[in-house]
């Protein structure tokens, strides 16, 4: 790892409550607002107050790196007193021990593409498909580890479309088991590279209310550079045909794009990727920042620029809710949900607690990005070692925000979600994501909250609330 990029911090041995009275100034395009995370509420304030709190703005990456600001403790003391009696209806609190909710099956560890940034290159050397009995054993194990059934089963790989028969059998088995146990059927999710999807698959995904994510990284030039077939030919034409086919069938499809340093170096911004996808008629997209690909000289300046660009896209997404043609950047959905539900997320993600990934051979891990000898739960079949699972899971429970001093002082503590896996790819330790990951995420959260503040002051407020409601409601695949 480059010395210029700090790694994540290890958890402290004991829990600590977050500091009282945390706050930040968020900015929309029209105005500035105070956000108080403990009541998860945006406040308007006179300009004189905002001007005096200039140091506490969170609208740029550099303002979201750790470090106490002048008068911060005194200002917190003010807000601690200020919110007394202002408690909103309590929202849900995620806990460390809620049971398994989300299962990922790496159902095909064969891939027909040779993406330049693939994290699963070693895994895919196995060139194996998960056997139906392994799929069933994984479902059985996951249901045993859940409290009241699963929220989602996600098919990943390799390229999961290469295991379509196994996917069909697994879906059938999940439906049978959930009926038998009296659990609701989980959502089914697939992330496909879009090069092998047939009409039969599209019809099946629609029938079973799959949430389908097709991978596309931007325009043809950048996509073909990053996502060629194994022989070197670009995959863009095939993928764009697949997206068009979903649209012709009237079948919902979202796109997952990975934004890399190669994009940046080729002058392709996050905004350009989103504009390209919108141009293809895609209205829902996940843009994953491959932050681990930034290191060495110039990394901070580049990350600051990418963070600004990403936040601009997030702002555009919220502003689109004021129009008749909204689009959703999935990476900010946790901010929207958290703001409205007033969710208090105890951990940055579900890895090792509510989330589990299983490889083709039945070996299970806290997440598909958190695979090492140290994090292996072992195999999901008869040889399952529940003590080992509990021991590893405990490490993730004790890596929650209450175990990190930085999180305890952070204004984004309650609402923040992030990714333990992306930093684990850089350094194989269970830790808080590095401060620069948090800086990007907090800039994004701040931008979304600032634009929500603007929208609530806008003449189009009713349209905004209607569109917001549409994106908040559980969709068909989530029902």
């Amino acid at each position, binding site marked *: 790892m480059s010395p210029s990029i700090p790694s994540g911090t290890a958890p402290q041995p004991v829990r600590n409550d977050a500091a009282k009275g945390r706050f930040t100034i968020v900015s929309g395009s029209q105005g500035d607002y105070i956000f108080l995370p403990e009541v998860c509420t945006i406040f308007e304030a006179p300009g004189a107050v905002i001007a005096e709190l200039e140091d506490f703005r969170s609208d740029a990456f550099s303002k979201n790196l750790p470090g106490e600001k002048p008068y911060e403790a005194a200002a917190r003391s003010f807000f601690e007193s200020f919110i007394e009696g202002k408690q909103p209806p309590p929202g849900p609190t995620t806990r460390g021990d809620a049971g398994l909710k989300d299962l990922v099956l790496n159902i095909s560890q064969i891939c027909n593409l040779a993406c330049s940034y693939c994290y699963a290159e070693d895994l895919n050397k196995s060139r194996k498909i998960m056997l139906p009995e392994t799929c069933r054993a994984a479902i059985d194990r996951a249901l045993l580890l859940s409290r009241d059934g699963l929220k989602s089963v*996600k098919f990943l790989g390799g390229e999961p479309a290469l295991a379509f028969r196994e996917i069909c059998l697994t879906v059938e088995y999940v439906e049978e088991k959930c009926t038998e146990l009296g659990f609701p059927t989980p959502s089914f999710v697939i992330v496909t590279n879009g090069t092998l999807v047939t009409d039969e698959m599209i019809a099946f995904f629609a029938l079973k209310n799959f949430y389908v994510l097709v991978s596309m990284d931007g325009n043809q030039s950048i996509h073909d550079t990053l996502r060629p077939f194994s022989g070197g030919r670009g995959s863009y034409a095939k993928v764009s045909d697949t997206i068009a086919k979903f649209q012709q069938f009237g079948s919902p499809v979202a796109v997952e794009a990975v934004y890399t340093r190669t994009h940046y170096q080729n002058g392709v911004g996050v905004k350009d990727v989103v504009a390209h996808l919108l141009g293809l008629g895609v209205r829902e997209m996940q843009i994953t920042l491959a932050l681990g690909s930034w290191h060495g000289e110039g990394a901070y300046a580049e990350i600051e620029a990418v963070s600004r660009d990403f936040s601009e896209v997030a702002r555009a997404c919220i502003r689109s809710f004021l129009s008749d043609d909204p689009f959703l950047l999935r990476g900010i959905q946790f901010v929207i949900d958290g703001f*409205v539900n007033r969710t208090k997320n105890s951990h940055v993600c579900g890895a090792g607690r509510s989330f589990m990934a299983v490889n083709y051979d039945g070996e299970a891990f806290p997440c598909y990005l958190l695979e090492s000898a140290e994090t292996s739960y072992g195999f999901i079949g008869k040889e399952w070692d529940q003590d080992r699972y509990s021991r590893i899971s405990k490490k993730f429970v004790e890596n929650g925000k209450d175990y990190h001093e930085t999180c305890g002082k952070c204004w984004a503590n309650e609402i923040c979600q992030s990714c333990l896996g992306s930093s684990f790819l850089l350094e194989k330790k269970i830790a808080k994501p590095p401060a620069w990951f948090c800086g990007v995420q907090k800039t994004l959260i701040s931008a979304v909250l600032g634009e929500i503040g603007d929208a609530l002051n806008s003449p189009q407020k009713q349209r905004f609330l209607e569109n917001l409601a549409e994106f*908040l409601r559980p969709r068909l695949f989530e029902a």
Partner: protein
Amino acid sequence: MGSRDAPDLSHLSGRDIEKVAEAIGAGPIRALMANKEAIAAMSADDINKLSELAAATRANCGGIGCG
């Protein structure tokens, strides 16, 4: 403003008192205290209504990682 109008500083001494006095006298804190009544929550009722519609939790793992 209740007890915060006149904080009990009897447990502090020397430099601590100086720090508190400095903070209270400083722009940010003075502005907050002078404008407390003008700091107003935005659309709380609208947001409360929306929370009844929303999914309790979603099956994803947040921003940077995956959809």
